[in-house]
C-alpha cells in the first residue's frame, strides 16, 4: 500500500513543475492527501523524498558585505619586530610582521601596537577578530606563543573579555568557529581599531613567529556598492526568540 502511494507521490512531484493552473492545484492536493496517508502509516515522508535520506550542505559565502577582513598594520614597532619596511620600521602598506623571540629580551617579544586603517568609504560593524600565524622553532621544543590584548575602537572599552593578555590561538583562523567579543560596535572613520601584540617562548632566543591580525566586519554602508544587511549574528533582535502568534 505504502509503496504504491510513494510511487504515485513521486510521479506527481516530478510532474508538478510542468503543470499550471487548476491541474497544478489538483496535483498539489493529491500529494498532500498522500502525505497524510503516509504519515498515518508512520512513513517518514521527508526521508523518502528525492534526497534518498541524504542531506546536502554546501559551504557558502556569507552574503554581500559580510564577514569581510580588515587587517591591522604595525604602526608602532620595536627592535623585536620586522615589517615589510624593515626591522623596527612601522608600515601602513603590509600587515605581516615577523617577531624575533629574544632579540632584545630572552623568551619574549616586547609588546607593540597594531591598528586598522581609517575606512572613509564605508561604515562597518566589527563582529570578530582573527589572527593567522606560522612559527619557527626547533622541532623538538614547544612552539612560541602569540599574545593579544586591548582590542579597542577609538577610545572605547576593551572588546576582549580578558583585560590582560590572552593566547592568540583562541582567535586563530584555523579554529573551526569565531571567538566572541564583548560587543559588536560600529567602526566609522575617523575611528580606527587597535590591538596590542606580544610573544613568548620556552626558548630564550631564535624562535620566530610570522603573523598578521585582522578584524572581521560586516559592511553596513558602502559608498560604491550601497547598503547591506548585516548577518543575523550582528542584529540584536535576531538573537532573541520570537513568540509565535497564530
Amino acid at each position, binding site marked *: 500500500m505504502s509503496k504504491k502511494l510513494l510511487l504515485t507521490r513521486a510521479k506527481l512531484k516530478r510532474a508538478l513543475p510542468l503543470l499550471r493552473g487548476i491541474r497544478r492545484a489538483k496535483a498539489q492536493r493529491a500529494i498532500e492527501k498522500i502525505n497524510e496517508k503516509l504519515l498515518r502509516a508512520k512513513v517518514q515522508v521527508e526521508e523518502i523524498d528525492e534526497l534518498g535520506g541524504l542531506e546536502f550542505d554546501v*559551504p557558502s559565502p556569507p552574503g554581500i558585505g559580510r564577514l569581510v577582513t580588515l587587517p591591522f598594520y604595525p604602526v608602532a614597532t620595536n627592535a623585536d619586530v620586522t615589517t615589510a619596511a624593515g626591522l623596527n620600521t612601522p608600515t601602513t602598506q603590509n600587515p605581516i610582521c615577523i617577531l624575533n623571540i629574544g632579540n632584545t629580551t630572552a623568551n619574549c617579544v616586547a609588546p607593540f601596537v597594531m591598528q586598522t586603517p581609517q575606512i572613509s568609504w564605508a561604515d562597518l560593524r566589527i563582529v570578530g577578530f582573527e589572527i593567522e600565524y606560522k*612559527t619557527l622553532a626547533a*622541532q623538538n621544543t*614547544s612552539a612560541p606563543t602569540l599574545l593579544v590584548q586591548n582590542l579597542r575602537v577609538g577610545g572605547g572599552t576593551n572588546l576582549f*573579555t580578558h583585560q590582560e593578555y590572552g593566547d592568540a590561538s583562541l582567535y586563530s583562523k584555523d579554529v573551526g568557529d569565531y571567538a566572541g567579543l564583548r560587543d559588536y560596535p560600529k567602526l566609522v572613520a575617523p575611528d580606527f581599531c587597535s590591538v596590542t601584540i606580544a610573544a613568548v617562548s*620556552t626558548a630564550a632566543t*631564535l624562535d620566530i613567529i610570522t603573523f598578521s591580525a585582522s578584524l572581521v566586519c560586516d559592511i553596513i554602508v558602502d559608498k560604491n556598492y550601497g547598503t547591506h544587511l548585516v548577518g543575523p549574528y550582528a542584529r540584536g533582535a535576531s*538573537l532573541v526568540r520570537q513568540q509565535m502568534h497564530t
Partner: protein
Amino acid sequence: MKPHSHSHRHPHSKHHKPSGRVGGDIGFIQGAGRLRFTSISPAGTGRKVYIPLYLTAPIVGYQALTDTGLAPISTTCPTITLAAPAANGATNTATLVSPQISWALLRFVGFVTSIQTPVIPSLPPMDITFSDLRLGGSTNLFVHEDFASGDLYEIGNSNPGFRYYPVLKSPNTMTVQVQGIGMATSQATAFSCSIMCDILDDDQYGMHISGPYARRDTIQSPT
C-alpha cells in the same frame, strides 16, 4: 629548525564545515533547490568569549612566560612553561585562576586549552592534564573527578561538555588544577588554558542573551 604551521591541527576550518538539517520543503520553496547553503558565523554579541586562567602562586616546575621574560607568577600573561618532573611520573600540581570580572555577569559554557607539544619530540613528550574545574567553592564541573588529558579540551575540538553551566559573578573566580605527566628527561612544554563564557550583563555594553546551548528551556523537546 623547521617551520610548522598550525593549520593541520584543525581540519575543519571555519570556511568549510557542514551543519544543520534540511528543513523540509523550506529550502525548495526559497529557491535553494535541495541544497542547503551554510556559512560559519560569529556566535552573536557577547557569546563564546574567552577568559584566560593565570598562574598566580609560585610552584616548583612552573614558570609564567611574560612579555618581559620568565616569571614565577603572572596575572597578565596566561602562557606557562612546565619543566619535566624530578622523577618519572607526575610533576607538582598547580592551581590556575581566572581574574575577577567585576564589570560583567557571565555564564560559564566551556573550557579550552592550547598545549604546545613539540611537533617531532626527541625526548619523551609530556602530557598536560587537568582536574577540578571549579567556580568559587562549587562542585567540580568536569565529569572526571581526577586528572584527564588537556588535549581533550584543545581549542578547536568540538566543545566538550560539562556538568553544568554556572553563572560567574565577581568576586567568584574559576580555578583548575594542572599537572604534567612525563619522564625526568622530558622536554619542557608550554601551555595555556581559558574558560569560555557568555556575557549576560556588561557594565559598558549592556545585557545580552546567552546562546541556546545555555538556556535550559531551548534544549528540551517541545511537548
